[in-house]
């Protein structure tokens, strides 16, 4: 899938790196190409990876243009709405973060031009990565309202994807609604789903959580809603609405740990209302997706 995305000289070098350990490719205009391999940033050289910046392959403006052309299929208008949000999701759930000069008109972002940096994030399917704590999150037919906490790149999406899959095969009577705003969870691209989330999942993509929660509950009658990267201030109403409607919510949020989460303004409301029954903290000290701890609704650690 990377072959259709990258310029040939980058792909020929990337080929030497096992895909299961490659998580990011960073292209910055006129800078050495950086890849994240097994959680560590290193330079990309002609033969694979190197720590020596002198041996690194350089990225020029045309390489960035080539990637943009490839991800848009020579149709920039088809990805402009995504570029406005700062990322483009392409085939296989690969997410390309975009940075450059933001063009606004009357305070409305129209596009990003002169793109100078791209962050290509490669999704990974790790079947069984949620099984270690599955029984802490599911009790018989009850799926606890769960908040997955981790810093960026620590495996939240991989965990959620596997949890949806495991739920599908272990609690097959449950209808799962996946709200996949950035198409990362399911790898949904041009009418086909690339990553496996089981047989009982309905998927909303490319829409706000508020819209998907309200319409999803009304029309798809889910038992569980799974979604990635919530914003407590923006999405709290939708989550409260779902939980009070009898639908379990499993979602993730960016935070380093529970203490970090407590500093978020809206979290006190979440705690007071005891919205979530479980808090799962993920970390990436050795490998991404390591489960650091599981807390209950009173923030008492139940798994370490």
């Amino acid at each position, binding site marked *: 899938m990377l072959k259709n995305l990258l310029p040939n000289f980058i792909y020929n070098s990337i080929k030497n790196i096992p895909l299961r350990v490659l998580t990011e490719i960073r292209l910055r205009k006129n800078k050495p190409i950086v890849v994240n391999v097994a959680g560590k940033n290193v330079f990309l050289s002609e033969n694979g990876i190197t720590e020596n910046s002198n041996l690194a392959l350089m990225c020029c403006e045309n390489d960035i243009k080539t990637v943009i052309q490839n991800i*848009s*299929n*020579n*149709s*920039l*208008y*088809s990805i*402009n*709405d995504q570029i406005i949000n700062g990322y483009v999701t392409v085939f296989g759930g690969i997410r390309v973060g975009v940075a450059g000069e933001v063009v606004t008109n009357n305070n409305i972002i*129209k*596009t990003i031009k002169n793109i100078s940096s791209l962050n290509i994030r490669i999704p990974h399917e790790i079947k069984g990565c949620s099984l270690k704590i599955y029984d802490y999150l599911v009790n018989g037919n009850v799926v606890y309202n769960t908040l997955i906490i981790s810093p960026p790149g620590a495996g939240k999406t991989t965990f959620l994807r596997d949890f949806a899959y495991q739920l599908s095969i272990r609690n097959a009577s449950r209808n799962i609604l996946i709200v996949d705003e950035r198409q990362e969870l399911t790898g949904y691209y*041009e009418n086909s789903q690339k990553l496996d989330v089981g047989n009982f999942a309905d998927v909303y993509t490319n829409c706000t959580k508020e819209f998907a929660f309200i319409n999803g509950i009304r029309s798809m009658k889910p038992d569980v809603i799974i979604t990635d990267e919530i914003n407590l201030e923006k999405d709290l109403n939708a989550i409260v609405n779902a939980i009070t409607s009898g639908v379990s919510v499993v979602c993730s949020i960016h935070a380093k740990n529970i203490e970090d989460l407590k500093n978020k303004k809206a979290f006190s409301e979440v705690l007071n209302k005891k919205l979530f029954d479980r808090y799962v903290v993920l970390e990436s000290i050795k490998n991404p997706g390591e489960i650091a701890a599981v807390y209950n609704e009173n923030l008492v650690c139940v798994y370490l």
Partner: protein
Amino acid sequence: MIKLLLLVCVFVAIIFLGFSYYMFFKKKENFYKDLTSFLEFASNEISFNKTTISTIVEKYKPYFCSELKTYLNNKFINKTNNFKFVYLNEEEIVDMDEFFNKFGTCDADTEVLKVKNFSVFANNHLAIAKEKVAKQGMLALKLAIAFAFIVVIIFI
């Protein structure tokens, strides 16, 4: 007997020449008909679905009836630029390339506008092509038939 056979051959050859001349104009007309329909289809797809160009070409494939199909297929699906137009002149080829080389480089609203502007070009050429079919094409065909009969009569 040989003379009769030769006359039939000459008769068919003259009509074939006239018909070929007529078909040259007809194919050009078909090309522009194809182009205007494709542009209308593309404009709708871009404004309502923001479909990529390669998908638009794929979707429209069953409706193509001219060399436009190969041209667009090469350009947007096979990504090669080795197509040679048979029925267009140099100026028309330059205009075609100029439009399709820049197709897909702007936001949806601008693309729709660009497609609409290019449709005007396509419609103008369609009108010219239709006129040529009606005048030069048909004239060639009629002249060929008449000339073929004259030749046959003379030699009989």
